[in-house]
Every structure is written in C-alpha cells, then in structure tokens.
C-alpha cells in the first residue's frame, strides 16, 4: 500500500494531535521538572485531572484517608470543607429525613473507603431489601443492557488487544509493551550497549523493520511480522493498514493513538521531546518520531493478535459480533479477566468458560448475575449503614423508600467523584491562611546603612532556609532571582566537545561561553584513569567480562567496603587519585573576525603539533613551528605537499599524503570544519551591549539598583550525591537541570567589568567601585556555600574575606541543623556541627536513596520584596523571587518573572503534586528497583516504561506523603491593577490562573489588602496581621 501525500500528512497530523496530552520526557542527565498533565492545561484543573485519570489510568487526588490524615494534623481548613459541602449540596434536592451535610461531612472525615460501590447491578429496591435483611430476588439484566455496557467498556475507547485481553485473559497488552520496550531500548540506546542496533541512521521505523523481518526471536514466538511489513511502505502506510485491518473507524484513530501512546507514556514522551530537540546529538544522528513509534507498536500489536486469530475475535467487527451473539459468555469473561468476578464463584466461572458449553454458560450467567446483584446490594447496604452510624442516621436510613435511597446514593456518588477538589481547596485555604498570617506587607524602613554583603540566591525553595540563616548571622541582605541569573548560556566545559544549555528549557540560548584553563594542566593521563579505561573496555567486550570478574573482581570488593563503611574518607582518597580540574576562566567577550580567525589558527596549530607527536612519537622540542604552519596550509588546501615534514622525518610521498589525509579527516583540519568553527565562534561570548542588558535586567528584576555593598554574591546551586540517577533533579531547574555556578560566574564577570558599570551608571544604576561580584555555589545536599574565581578578587577586599567566610559557614551549619532532622529516621535535635557531618555523609553515601528532600514541600511562589517574608520561617516551602514594583512602572519585569520563573515553578509544583498523589503512575515508584536505561532514563526492574516523575523517596516518607500536594499558591506584592494587568498580558499565566492550575493572591501594599482569585472571582480581605499558629486538631504520629 502506498499513500498519497495528503494521506501521509493526515496520519502525521493525527499522530501529532494524539501525542499532545503525553508529557515530554527529558533525558535524566538534565532532569526537567514538568507537569505530567501539561498537555491538558487548557482545561480547568478538575476537568484536566479527570481526563488525566482516565488517560493514564491514574489517581489525580490523594485517597480520602490521606486527606483525613492531613485533617488530623491540622492542615485542612474545616470551614472550607463545610463550605465545599454546602456548595455541592446547594445544587441538589434534599432527601427526606437525611441530614445531608452531616452525612457528607461524616463521609469525608470519618469513612476511609468509598460509600458507593458496585457495578450498578443492584437496584435501589435491592439495597432497601438488603438494609432490612431480606432475601434479594429480581430479574437479571437483559441482553441489550449487557451488550451496551460491554460495548462501552470494550469497544469505545480501548485498543483492540486490550478488549481481547479483558475477554480472554490473553495478556497481549503486556507482551506488546515488552516487545515495544525492547525495540526502543535497542534503537534509542545512547552508548550503554556495546553492540548497537544496525541502520539507526535511517530512523526508528526503518531500522526496526529491517531487524524485525529477520528476527528469529519474533519468529520463534510465532509472530510473522514479515507479513505485515512490506519493503516499500513507510510508517504511515503501516499505520493505515493496521488500523484498517483492525476495523477501527477512521474517526476514532486519533483517540486510539493517544491511548496507545499513553500505555507507555514515558517512552512516548521521550520520543516526542526528542523529535523536536534539534540540538540533541542523538536525535540528529538517529531520528525518530511518534509516527515511527506508533507504526512499530501497531504492527507488533497486529502480529500478536494475528497469533490468536484462530481461537477468538481479534478485530473490532469480530469483537462486536462476539458481544452481539455470545453476550452472556462475553459478560462472564469480562468479569473473570477484568478482576471484577465474585471471588466465591471465580473458579466455577473459569471452569465453565473453559468447558465452553453454551447451555452451562447460560445457566451460570443467570446464577452469577443473581449472586453478584445480591452481593452488591448487601455491600452497598453495609457501607450505607456504616456511614449512617457515623452520622447518627441509622433510623432515617432504614425508613428510606427505594426512590429516596436511589437519590441518596446518586448524591453520594456525585460527591465522591468531585470530593478531591473540596479537600484540595480546603488544604490550600489553610496554607493560604498560614502564609497571610506570616507575611509583613509594606516597604521596610530604609536605614540607609550599607550591608556587609548582598547575596543573590536562586528562587529555589531550598534557598529560603539558607537565606534566612544568612540574614540572621550578620549584616547580610539576600535576594531571590531565577538561578540562571537571567543569562541564558550555552556552555562548553573545558575538555568537553558538546554544549550544554544553562537556562530554563523554555529558552534557547544564543550565546556560547567557553571555559579555558588559565593554569598549567597536567597533560599526562594518570595511571588510575588508564586503569579505569582499560577496565571499561574489558567489561564491555564479549568474552573478556568472564575473565575480568575472576581476575580483578576482588578489587571491587575493596571499593564496595570503602564506599559503604567509610564513605567520606574513602571518597576523599579516591578524589585525590583523580586529576584535578585546572583553574579556568570563561571566554565571555565577543570576538572580532580577526580574533576568531586567530583563535582557530592557534587551535589548529596545537592539534597539528599533537598529531605529529602522536603519529610519529616526537617530543615538543622536535616539532618546529615552520612544519606545523606548512602542514596547516596543506591541510586547508592552500598549498601542495609538505616538504619540510617529509624531509624531517624522511617520509615518502605516499606516507606524507596519508598523514595529510588523516589531518583532514581524523584531526578535522579542513575548510568545512573551519566554517563551522567560525559560525560557532560567532556565537561565542556577549557583546558589551548584551552584557549591560543582562546585568541591568538582573539587578532591576530584584530591585537591587542602589546601596550596593562591598560584596555581592551570586549564588548558584547544585547538589552532591552518589549512585543517584536523579542527581540532576536536585540541581537547578532554571539552569536546565544543571548546576548554577557557570551562570553565576558569567554574570559576576560581566558585572565586574568597568565598561559595563560605566554604561549601567548611565542608566541610573551606580555600582560603587569597591563593589565586587562573587560567584558562589550553594550545595543543597550539604548546605555548603563555596566562593569561586577568588583569584580575581581585588586586594582591597582580601581583608574582609575571613569575616565573609565565617558568615557563610555559620549560615550553612545553621541551615543544616534546621534541615537534617527531616532526613533522619527519627527526628532529633542536632548541634550544627553534627548536622553538617550527617549532611556530608549523605552526599557521599552510595546507599543513600534520599540525600536531601530537594524541592519537596514546595507550596508558595512569592514575588515581592524580601521584607514581605523576612520575619517568617517558610520552612523551605517557598520560591522567593525578589521584585519591587516601584521600579517597574511598565510591568515588564513582572511579566518576565511570570513568563519564566513562575511557569517553571508551576511545572515543579505539578510534578511534585502528581508524583505524590499517584507515585506509581505519575511518579517513578521506588528508587530501589530502578535501573538505568540507555543512559537517558530509568526503568523499574529490567524492563518497564521509562519512569517519569519523581521517585517515592523524594515525595513520600514511610509510605505517607512528605510533600503536601497543593497547587502553587502564588503571591504578587504589588498594587492590584499593576499585578493583574501583568498576569492578563502573559497569556500562559493568565490561563494557568483562570483554569485553576495556580492559586493567585495579590498583596496590595498600598491599599493594605489581599485579593484572592478563587472560582473565577476575586475576593478581597484585609491583612490578618499576625502569625496564627495552627495547632493540630489531634496529635498524629508522623
């Protein structure tokens, strides 16, 4: 089958649309927090959650018992619960004799399982009879009713194989997932496998097709995939043919594809992201997209179904006929294989279906349905009685007519469907109350005193604690700014050949920054590095691992003992064995064309000298500049032959040309590479104008435009952990899941430049001459604050360095002291020194699954001046972005904050929310079972979907949520009109607010009131004034 262009494009468009609800999955080397329901953000939050629950077969809210626990801990606003119940009941008719508010509140707060259960077989009259203890008799549902239910359950929204599995217990879906995962692991591998899949350059589908048609493994499993795949067909044609063979109407293809993609949403999300990541090396080399993925999946699915075609229905029309003709059998099969069967009759149903005699099946159907109906009626009655007892309504319940009971059950069912939102709102209300009780609106009195140091921290929630402690230990002022300091950087690290984007994933950096060594590095490769390389090569070949393990396996036992018993000392010792990175500077200024040309020439000369040394074993003193120059000219095609080299080494013409050829191909000394390098160098650095803009923007965004202190610290952050594939999840999200140090170094270098300061002065930002910008790094695992680029510090500042270091050390220790009890098995009060020791051990312990809590606990995003929250310990739960509306009359700065940092904060918040409410589906389950897949993700066990989201150890504590799942409560400190207009002008944020993905509060310092956006309306309230501690309603062991 060959498709016309129009049809091909239609399939591609369908796949694109089908993939939209599937969240991106970024490689874990640079973990990006994301909202798993990002593709549904155009819907209001409750609706999106309901859709997400169906699509991902997941839970969108905590189970009721989880919320009840929060209620006992005093973290739920009871009044808000009552108001929620009242609002729900306002639209419903009362049930005579039943105190509905009381019943529903009892249901919410005292009953830990659903009150409405069953498949709907039991009628109201049956429940009434069950309530009175009578025998339940009645007619069984008719054929049409059963057929309609089966069609709805099996045909409307499921892939065909899922329906087959639910009717025949075949497990095709699981087998298909396994085969697709294996195919993905083969194709997408990024160097983990020693033998890679052949033909990957041709794309996923083409490479897979070549393998699949010759695959003995598939053939042995009885899958004749070759019959489905034909030479001339592209993936689109395969998709069309499979869908037509399955008999699925074209109008449902997009929904069908979405369902297929959602089954392995980790892999689908990775492919979806990868197909759009133009800069991604592996995507450039081995292209793949969702159309390929769907074609592979559908072809394999059809092959698996074909294997079973002789024994039962395997297409939609056949399933339709089966339901039409053998509806009783279909019903019983569905009951058995969906797990809904009455346990007491399961074995009998299984045996009867296996025997396959229609008469026996008919008899069993009658008996089974009657039994199930009675069972459901009794179960429903029992649940209602339990609830009635909790609400003092047993008598009223016993007097209800069948009609009233039906209405009561209907109300309870509706309530349970929407209950999660009421709990969530009530929890958020309590969190809002707590915040409003603690903040102090209004500008701080300006004392005009110059602080000893000012420190700019990332808005990350982990900065809140250390900022508070730093302010507490001395005369320090702190500010919050997105951790990339507003400078999107594409960074090439010393010794690395690829660029890393150090900015939020929403941005693409235009400027490249290179790191160069300023101290003499040791060119000799250490013995340990050579040994490590040799070991890896031995480990990765075919036969040598068997011998290697026998020969040197014991050595790794020592390694294991060292890492386990003495992690700190052992790691320190190991570090010493490795080469230290030399001191470096960043190439920050733009190069002129001449300078760029000169740089390239210099690099080429160095490469040629190295090539001569390596190829001919010459020492540096034997390689003359003239020879190098001559070779460069020849390699670049500006001259013919290299007589000086030939004469020096006695080479014949063939050897000489062979070496020149190698210079061009292996060492890449040729004109096309030079063109590429010139292009890259064109991106290198920032012009003076750009530098001024970035510095001015960063300072204005946080309101730091005057009263600069002697030291201004730009504190990026990163984490330290061992044996942790999620390490980058603990790094800076604003730096694309990398450490924030480079961005800090870049901005510091810019801000220290006299030319930049002169231009800033023209804009009214007068940075005194004695102000020095320091890059620093906050290690969030140990809370250590380290200063960098100290070699550039002016001599005038050295005398103050000791005081600065002591202040930073004190803040670090106090912060660790506050934080460590949450990480210990049992909370205990530790001295600052002891807490620091624990933290240091956590960072180096390879068995530690939770080196730190990361961003767990995040709940607030506060945009305003520091004074607003300075006196209020937010326990590391708030993103704090400094902002002074007084210097932003046009709202540009606020809009920038809303567009970037707030959106990233919302992704982080939603990632934590959904990973907490359903860690298995939206999170990634326990880390203990994770294995790295293809060097870009993790799987549970040896084969699973790519695990997206956060692991249990990040959001749960001993099975209970550590992270409180709340939507991001965002506070903007500004006059109402100023803030609301800014929100309205940033459409992404406007819809996030209007659709309820963000809870927005505007603190108006001029009118002294707070405006809260709730249920599509604003409500205004005055400041509460003082902190009201919320005592726990009951003490609950955590």
């Amino acid at each position, binding site marked *: 089958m060959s498709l016309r262009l129009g049809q091909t494009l239609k399939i591609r468009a369908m796949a694109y649309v089908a993939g939209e609800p599937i969240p991106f999955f970024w490689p874990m080397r640079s973990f990006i927090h994301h909202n798993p329901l990002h593709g549904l953000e155009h819907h209001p939050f409750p609706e999106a959650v309901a859709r997400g629950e169906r699509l991902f077969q997941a839970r969108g809210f905590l189970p009721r018992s989880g919320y009840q626990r929060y209620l006992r801990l005093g973290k739920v606003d009871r009044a808000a619960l009552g108001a929620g119940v009242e609002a729900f009941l306002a639209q419903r008719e009362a049930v005579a004799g039943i105190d509905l508010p009381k019943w529903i509140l009892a249901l919410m707060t005292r009953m830990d*399982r659903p009150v409405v259960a069953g498949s709907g077989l039991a009628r109201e009259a049956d429940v009434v009879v069950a309530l009175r203890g009578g025998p339940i008799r009645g007619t069984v549902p008719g054929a049409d009713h059963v057929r309609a239910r089966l069609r709805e359950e099996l045909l409307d929204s499921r892939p065909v194989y899922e329906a087959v599995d639910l009717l025949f217990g075949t497990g095709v879906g699981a087998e298909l997932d396994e085969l697709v995962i294996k195919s993905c692991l083969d194709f997408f591998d990024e160097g983990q496998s020693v033998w890679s899949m052949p033909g990957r350059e041709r794309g996923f589908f083409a490479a897979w097709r070549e393998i699949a048609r010759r695959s003995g493994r598939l053939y042995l499993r009885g899958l004749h995939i070759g019959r489905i795949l034909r030479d001339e067909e592209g993936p689109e044609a395969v998709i069309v043919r499979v869908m037509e063979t399955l008999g699925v109407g074209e109008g449902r293809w997009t929904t069908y594809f979405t369902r297929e993609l959602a089954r392995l949403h980790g892999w689908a999300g990775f492919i979806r992201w990868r197909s759009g990541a133009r800069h991604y090396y592996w995507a450039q080399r081995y292209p793949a997209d969702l159309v390929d993925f769907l074609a592979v999946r559908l072809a394999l699915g059809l092959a698996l179904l074909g294997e079973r075609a002789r024994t039962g229905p395997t297409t939609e029309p056949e399933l339709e006929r089966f339901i039409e003709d053998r509806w009783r059998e279909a019903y019983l099969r569905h009951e058995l294989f969906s*797990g809904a069967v009455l*346990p*007491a009759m399961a*074995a009998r149903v299984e045996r009867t279906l296996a025997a396959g005699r229609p008469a026996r099946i008919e008899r069993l159907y009658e008996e089974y349905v009657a039994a199930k109906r009675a069972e459901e009626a009794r179960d429903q009655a029992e649940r209602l009685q339990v609830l009635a007892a909790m609400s003092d309504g047993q008598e009223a319940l016993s007097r209800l007519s069948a009609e009233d009971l039906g209405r009561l059950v209907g109300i309870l069912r509706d309530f349970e469907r929407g209950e999660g939102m009421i709990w969530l709102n009530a929890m958020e209300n309590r969190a809002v109350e707590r915040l409003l009780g603690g903040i102090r609106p209004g500008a701080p009195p300006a004392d005009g005193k110059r602080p000893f140091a000012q420190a700019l921290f990332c808005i990350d929630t982990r900065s809140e604690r250390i900022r508070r402690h730093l302010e507490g230990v001395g005369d320090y002022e702190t500010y919050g700014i997105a951790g990339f300091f507003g400078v999107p950087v594409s960074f090439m690290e010393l010794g690395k050949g690829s660029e890393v984007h150090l900015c939020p994933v929403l941005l693409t950096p235009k400027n490249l920054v290179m790191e160069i060594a300023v101290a003499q590095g040791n060119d000799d490769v250490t013995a340990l590095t050579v040994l490590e390389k040799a070991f890896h090569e031995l480990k990765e070949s075919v036969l040598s691992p068997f011998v290697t393990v026998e020969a040197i396996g014991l050595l790794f036992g020592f390694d294991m003992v060292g890492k386990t018993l003495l992690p700190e000392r052992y790691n320190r010792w190991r570090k010493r064995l490795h080469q230290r990175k030399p001191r470096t500077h960043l190439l920050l200024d733009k190069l002129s064309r001449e300078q760029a040309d000169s740089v390239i020439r210099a690099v080429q000369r160095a490469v040629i000298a190295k090539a001569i040394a390596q190829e001919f074993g010459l020492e540096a003193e034997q390689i003359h500049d003239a020879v190098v120059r001559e070779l460069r000219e020849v390699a670049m095609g500006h001259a013919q032959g290299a007589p000086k080299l030939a004469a020096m080494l006695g080479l014949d013409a063939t050897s000489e040309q062979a070496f020149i050829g190698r210079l061009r191909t292996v060492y890449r000394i040729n004109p096309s590479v030079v063109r590429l390098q010139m292009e890259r160098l064109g991106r290198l650095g920032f012009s003076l104008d750009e530098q001024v803009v970035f510095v001015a923007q960063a300072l204005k965004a946080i309101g730091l435009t005057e009263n600069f202190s002697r030291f201004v610290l730009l504190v990026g952050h990163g984490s330290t952990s061992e044996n942790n594939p999620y390490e980058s999840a603990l790094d800076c999200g604003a730096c694309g899941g990398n450490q924030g140090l480079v961005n800090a170094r870049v901005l510091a270098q810019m801000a220290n430049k006299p030319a930049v300061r002169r231009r800033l002065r023209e804009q009214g930002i007068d940075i005194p001459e004695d102000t020095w910008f320091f890059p620093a790094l906050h290690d969030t695992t140990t809370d250590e604050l380290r200063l960098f680029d100290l070699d550039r510090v002016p001599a005038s500042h050295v005398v103050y360095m000791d005081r600065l270091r002591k202040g930073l050390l004190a803040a670090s220790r106090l912060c660790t002291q506050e934080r460590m009890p949450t990480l210990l098995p049992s909370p205990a009060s530790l001295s600052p020194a002891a807490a620091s020791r624990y933290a240091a051990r956590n960072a180096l312990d390879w068995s530690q699954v939770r080196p730190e809590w990361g961003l767990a606990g995040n709940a607030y995003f506060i945009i305003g001046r520091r004074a607003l929250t300075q006196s209020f310990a937010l326990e590391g739960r708030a993103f704090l972005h400094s902002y002074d509306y007084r210097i932003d009359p046009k709202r540009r700065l606020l809009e920038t904050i809303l567009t970037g940092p707030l959106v990233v904060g919302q992704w982080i918040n939603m990632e934590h929310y959904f990973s907490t409410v359903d860690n298995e589906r939206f999170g990634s389950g326990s880390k203990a079972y994770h294995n790295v897949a293809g060097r870009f993700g993790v799987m549970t066990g040896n084969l699973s979907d790519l695990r997206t989201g956060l692991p249990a150890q990040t959001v749960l504590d001993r099975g209970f949520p550590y992270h409180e799942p709340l939507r991001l409560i965002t506070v903007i400190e500004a006059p109402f009109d100023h803030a609301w207009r800014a929100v309205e002008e940033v459409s992404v944020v406007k819809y996030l607010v209007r659709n309820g993905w963000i809870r927005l509060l505007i603190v108006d310092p001029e009118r002294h009131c707070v405006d809260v956006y709730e249920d599509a309306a604003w409500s205004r309230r005055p400041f509460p004034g003082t902190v009201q501690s919320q005592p726990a309603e009951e003490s609950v062991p955590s």
Partner: protein
Amino acid sequence: MGTPGLWSVAIFLPLFPLSVIFNALFARVGNAPMRAIILLAWPQVGLVLFGILPPGRVAGGVVALAVLGSLLYAFRAIALRDVDRWTGYIATSAWALLWPALAHHAAIDTLRLYALGFSVPLALLVLVADALKRRFGAAYAGLYGGTVRMLPRLAGATALVVLAAVAVPLFPGFFALVAVMVTTIPEQPWLAVCVGLTWLLWTWGGIRLLQGLIVGPGEAVAPVADLSRVEFGFYVLTLALLIAGALRLPGVTA
C-alpha cells in the same frame, strides 16, 4: 507386582490418568482440615499398599509415565489461579515423583518421610487458602492484591508456605527431589532432567501464585483482620520443624 496391585497404588501415588480420581475427590471436599488430612494421608496409603503387595519390579514405562505425568501437572499448574486446584495439581505432581524411587527399591520408610515432606506444606497451604477464603471469599490469584500491606502476617504465611510447597532449598521437598534425581541420573538421565524441569515449573507456578495473591495494589475492601500472632506462629513453627526435619532426612545427613 500384579496389575491390580499396581492400579491400586497408582491411584494413591497418582499416575496419569488415575490422578484424575484424587483431583476430583479433592475438589469435592470443601472442609479445609479434611482436605489437609487427605493430603497427608493419600500418599501414605499408596506407600502402605505398595509395601503390602508382593514385591516385584516396577516397570520402566510406569516410572516414565509417572515422571511425565508429574511434568504435565506441574506445567498445568502454572496457569492456575485457584489455590485449591493448584494445591491438588502440585500434590499430584509431587507424589508421582515417588515412583522412580520405588523403582530403585528405596526404603518405604524413607519414602513415607519424602511423601510427608511434600504433603505437609500443601496441607498448610490448604489452611492458608481457607484463611484467604474467609477474608476475601476465595483463594484465587489476581482478584485482590496488596495483602502484603493490608495483612502482612497472612501474606507472610502465604509466601512461606508456597515456597515450602514448591520445594525451595532447606524444605524437605527439595531434598526429596534431589534424592529422586540422584537415584535416576545414572540409569535414566533424561528422567532426572524431567524431574528438574518439574521442579522449575513448580517454582514458576508458585511465584505466579504469590504475585497474584500478595503483591500489587490493594483493593479498597472492608477492613479484614490479619492472622493472629498465634496462628502466624503456628505456620512459622511448623515450617521451622519441617526444615529441621528436612536436614535429618535419610540420605541427606549421611
């Protein structure tokens, strides 16, 4: 040994297709203690009958039929979800493996111990299945998961008893299997391979059963009580005694 004698023994040390008799009877008995007694007594009756019959050579074909029948039942048990039927099939598969030992003239007393080693864990499994039925309505894999969280003691007892039933090392079934394999290897190595394969299938079936009974997300059911400490202690103690006994099985301690 005459044919009528062989037939009667073949009912109690089940040879296919006579094994159907045991399984039909086992399926009809609903009372758990009675089932446990049947499991303990059935092979012993077979061995007693074998002992009182005139001595004679067990034909090679009978041994082959027994081992292949054992393999068949083990294979069939993999797909079973009903714990009672699974118990019956594993019992049938295990007892049939006594035939190779009978053919090699092993002491009847030793074989009684082997039979007991196979039967006791299965008898315990019947009691565990009864505990599951009382709580969930059936002992049937895949209908309710998460018992390990909801009912840790019952889940623990289930796991230990199933492991004992599939003859994992240290339990007597394992040593009985090893003894049977060791006696068969010199003359009929392919039979030893079949015995090994049977064991593999038992463990496979056992793990599938456990997967469907104790792990996975738990259903929101009405709260049910876990095993009491005393009940749990009973299972643990019995299994510990089995292990202690297994280490002293004839042919093992020598």
